[in-house]
């Protein structure tokens, strides 16, 4: 399959989908996480539980939702509820995965969605946490999706909106967060990354098709760990693309945003 046969959203959705195992309980936001989750559900993970922040549990989305609360997120759901109940599921340990984004990320997976520059005199003020802080703090594993740019992958985020491993091993637990939680994978337009177990530092584990280690290093604003046996992430299969395009997002509501 030629590279031109898929766009970056299709690629990232496929890469993320492959990491979702059957039976997982997943909080999904709009955009790529929704593509990835729905693709996984249609491929190898029919028994997942997709959940939306505003109160939709395991809906059968007729088209992709525009927001985490719109009617597509509760369409033929198994339950509709309120937001405290949704977050309490995470607090109770029910939730395996959350997909998060952010404006900045650092080597410990801390995410900033609040402010660039000084807190009291912001260079840029972003919307703030939304559901991210709670999901990233309380779910077992946090999946992060971001564009791989030097200005986003920074040495230290200006503001920790959602703690990753904070400043290293054991820091989450010392801060008081539930043990055993934390960032698990970072999906970018260039690479697949995890957090090395001993240091809790971000580590390159796979390259997307056509990307080199140098590309990734150059797009990263901190010293990146690089795994020895680096994976060359296989491009989307015909089957993956077919399902994405025919079943998951036939009207290309989200997919079209990946066309460059």
């Amino acid at each position, binding site marked *: 399959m030629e590279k031109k046969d898929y766009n970056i959203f299709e690629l990232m959705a496929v890469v993320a989908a492959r990491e979702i195992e059957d039976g997982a309980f997943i909080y999904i936001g*709009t*955009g790529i996480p929704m593509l990835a989750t729905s693709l996984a559900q249609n491929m190898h993970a029919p028994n997942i539980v997709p959940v*939306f*922040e*505003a*109160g*939709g549990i395991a809906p059968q989305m*007729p*088209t992709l939702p*525009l*927001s*985490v*609360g*719109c*009617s597509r*997120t*509760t369409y033929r759901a198994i339950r*509709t*509820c*309120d*937001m*405290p109940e949704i*977050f309490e599921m*995470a*607090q109770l340990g029910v939730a395996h995965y959350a997909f998060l984004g952010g404006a900045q990320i650092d080597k410990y997976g801390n995410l900033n969605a*609040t402010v660039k520059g000084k*807190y*009291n*005199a*912001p*260079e*840029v*003020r*972003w*919307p*703030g*946490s*939304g*559901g*991210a*802080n*709670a999901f990233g*703090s*309380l779910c077992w594993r946090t999946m992060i999706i971001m564009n791989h740019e030097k200005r986003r992958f920074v040495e230290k985020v200006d*503001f*920790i*909106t*959602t*703690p990753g491993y*904070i400043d290293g091993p054991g*820091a*989450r637990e010392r*801060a*008081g*967060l*539930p043990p055993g939680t934390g960032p698990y994978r970072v999906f970018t337009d260039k690479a697949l990354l995890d957090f090395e177990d001993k240091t809790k530092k971000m580590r390159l584990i796979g390259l997307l098709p056509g990307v080199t280690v140098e590309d990734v290093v150059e797009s990263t604003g901190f010293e990146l760990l690089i795994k020895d046996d680096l994976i060359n992430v296989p491009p989307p299969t015909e089957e993956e693309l077919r399902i994405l395009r025919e079943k998951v997002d036939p*009207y290309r*509501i989200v997919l079209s945003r990946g066309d460059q």
Partner: protein
Amino acid sequence: MARASIEILDEGAGQIFSKITPNEFREHMREKVRNAWRDKRMDIKTAIKQFVHDGDYLTMGGVSFVRLSMAAVHEIIRQKKRNLNLAAGTRTYDFNLLLDAGCVKNIDCGYITGMEVFGIPYITRKRVEMMITSGEVGISEYDNASMAWRHKAAAMGIPFLPIRNMMGADAFKHSAAKKIRCPFTGEQLVLVPAIYADVCIIHVHRCDIYGNSQIEGALNEDLGKSKSAKKLIITTEKIIDTEEIRLSPDRTLIPCFYVDAVVKIPYGAHPNNMPGMYYVDIDHMNEYMAASRDPSGKAFEEYYEKYIFGVDNFDEYLETIGGKKRLEHLEDLEHLRVRE
């Protein structure tokens, strides 16, 4: 008896913007509840005039582009309410309008200015940045969960809830939360203070003349907010008979004794989604976002003039956005009879 204590490990420096205490709220509810069975219908002008005051702490129902009470927001803006304190767990379009109109003094922040997939309106973002720098606006930092739990705590009649997030995050420092060691488990916990509001506005699918209300779809923070405001304004797509409420009592999410005003406003959430009734008006959202990108602010001013200041009420607004034909299209979209 033991004279042990619970150590407070850390405290945020953020302000508490609502000064209403549980005991003060109790006294208020004691009198309010006597009006449970009063016919509460009124128009939106009267409701906003009577129940929303400068300096109030305001909570609003719905979430992101869903079930926002836009008629109420327009009226608050036209009546030039000032110095409002806002609870902002996932506020989008409704919050932005109030902010642009200069109604806002303080914000308990979970998510502000963002329009999710549509991006952040440029002018609004710039205004917030300036207001933060000048100190014109006060912000305490939370997240959607801690904000939802703050409303829930109030609705439960307690002054705080213990929670397990906010730890290790910088928002904690700019919040009024406290970190303690749990006297039962020894684990660390965060305590977030309850928010008792002066006034809450929620748009619902249907209610009776007393305010017994039914809502479809995701409930966001509305159960908690409806019970924790001194005054509760219900705007509704439809008024139904109390006999219909009694047919499915499990579907009454807000009982009448919490309600102060019932205002009938069909399509009252436009340009937002009303689950099961009409979908997001994407064209209108795009028009708003486009206007926000003119750095001179002129396009944005025109937008506000056209849709809010230039009209007298929500019916006129609905004509401006395309009237019956447009609304029927949004209904078709919601019911998947046409494509987006």
